């Protein structure tokens, strides 16, 4: 319901701007502050939808099939990257929770890792990994590199969330590190884990798309965006179909996380989580 309302608002804004906006964009003191509203920069939404139904190249398959196939390919990479990233993030969080020294030594680097520009890093990963694994796997590694971060930070906070009384209670039951982790810290961290997983899902999509582009991996939605954008001058609607595909991918990943969340978070309070 609200999703549909959101789509409606977006359509109104897009088409509304096309009506009122200047064809050449609004230029203030030599700087273009508002984008061009012509059909080349902002094609009508129905043109984009129509483009989905027409063949990619003359006599080829319809664009929507190509886009969906590319989405499926990238989804596979995203899923692998997401799982690796979530797992690594989880391990890091557990290590940081358990050893104060690890937290103090590692956390700054975990944060630092995300300030390295992805476009600079991706070719390096491709270069290192290119000889030992297929191209899709290097892209998955890049996706994992982005995805592990929110999980590590969010999970750390979640694992640290139980009150002293809970920890002391477990100690009074003579429960060791592992049983305290399983019976207390993991369940307590769930409200922190799911927002982190949602962020990680989005990050994995971005990582996979950008990774595909900068490593030149064929078959995915990232590659499709690059290919279609080359035709932007002659066929402006085409590149938007690929972007629509990327957005769809993000929705599917977010949906998958929610699917996991709904049964596990029933009866649970939700916490406000700020993950940097």
């Amino acid at each position, binding site marked *: 319901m609200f999703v549909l309302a959101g789509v409606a608002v977006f359509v109104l804004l897009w088409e509304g701007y096309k009506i009122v906006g200047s064809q050449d964009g609004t230029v203030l003191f030599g700087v273009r502050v508002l984008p061009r509203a012509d059909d080349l920069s902002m094609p009508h939404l129905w043109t984009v939808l129509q483009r989905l139904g027409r063949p990619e190249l003359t006599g080829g398959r319809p664009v929507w099939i190509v886009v969906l196939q590319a989405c499926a390919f990238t989804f596979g990479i995203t899923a692998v990257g997401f799982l690796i990233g979530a797992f690594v993030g989880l391990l890091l969080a557990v290590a940081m929770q358990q050893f104060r020294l690890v937290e103090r030594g590692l956390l700054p680097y975990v944060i630092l890792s995300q300030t390295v520009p992805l476009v600079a890093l991706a070719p390096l990963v491709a270069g290192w990994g290119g000889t030992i694994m297929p191209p899709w796997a290097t892209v998955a590694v890049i996706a994992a590199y982005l995805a592990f971060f929110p999980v590590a930070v969010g999970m750390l906070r979640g694992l640290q969330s139980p*009150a002293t*009384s*809970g920890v*002391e*209670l477990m*100690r*009074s*039951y*003579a*429960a060791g590190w592992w*049983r305290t982790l399983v*019976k*207390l810290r993991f*369940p*307590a961290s*769930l409200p922190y884990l799911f927002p982190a997983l949602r962020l990680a899902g989005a990050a994995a999509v971005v990582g996979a798309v950008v990774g595909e582009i900068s490593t030149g991996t064929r078959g995915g939605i990232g590659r499709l965006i690059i290919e279609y954008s080359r035709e932007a001058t002659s066929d402006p609607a085409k590149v938007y179909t690929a972007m629509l595909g990327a957005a769809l991918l993000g929705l599917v990943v977010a949906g998958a996380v929610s699917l996991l969340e709904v049964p596990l978070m029933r*009866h*649970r*309070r939700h916490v406000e989580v700020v993950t940097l």
Partner: protein
Amino acid sequence: MSAVVVDKVTKVFNQGRSDEVTALSEVELTVGDGEFVSLIGPSGCGKSTLLRLIADLIEPTAGTVTVAGKNAGQARRDQDYGIAFQQAGLFEWRTVRRNVELPLELRGMGKTDRKTRAEEMLELVGLAEFAGHYPAQLSGGMQQRVAIARALAVQPPLLLMDEPFGALDEMTRERLQTELLGICAKTGTSTVFVTHSISEAVFLSNRVVVMSARPGRITASVAVDLPARDEAARQSEKYFEHVTAVRQALRGVPASL
């Protein structure tokens, strides 16, 4: 055999640092089997510290703590005591019954036995029909009762309670006091009860141990001898005499009883 023997225990926090604090100094305390002992004193007198030492949640700097004839660490590993804190500290992701089952689960008790025992305990605290509820659906007093049921679940010979009724309103507090006495009488449990309420200490205890701060020491021990512990007892002259005695001991006046 005494339930608890605390022998010349000293506890210093942050030893050797500028913020060194002597929380307890040469404390001696013996709790007999089946005895109900309250620790009372101003904040910072180390009464919670003493309870935590008995529970082996922290270790003494000097002296020894013996619980049920063993050192405190062994007693903890054998789960010879049940503990309840001021905050009920229930696990919100578990139902009431599964919360009570937690210590049994960690002891490796089988599923059906666990369920039976948990239901017995909930019956004892009068929450049998709430077994399937989640803690968030319960009032503060009910949560505290679940915490007590959880502490009693392993049927420990010793019950340690750190201001368990501190956060409750007066009505609930008095009702739970009566319930607790009933449970202790039924199960024959020895109890160490930390509180800062004089009336609560007197009403519940066989003995009220009065402590003073900086450094935490035991300054007096007031034996409480009430013929009965019911609503009438709260109004009795004897009760008020004991309240006065404890109050004077807290102020440093030698006890007259």
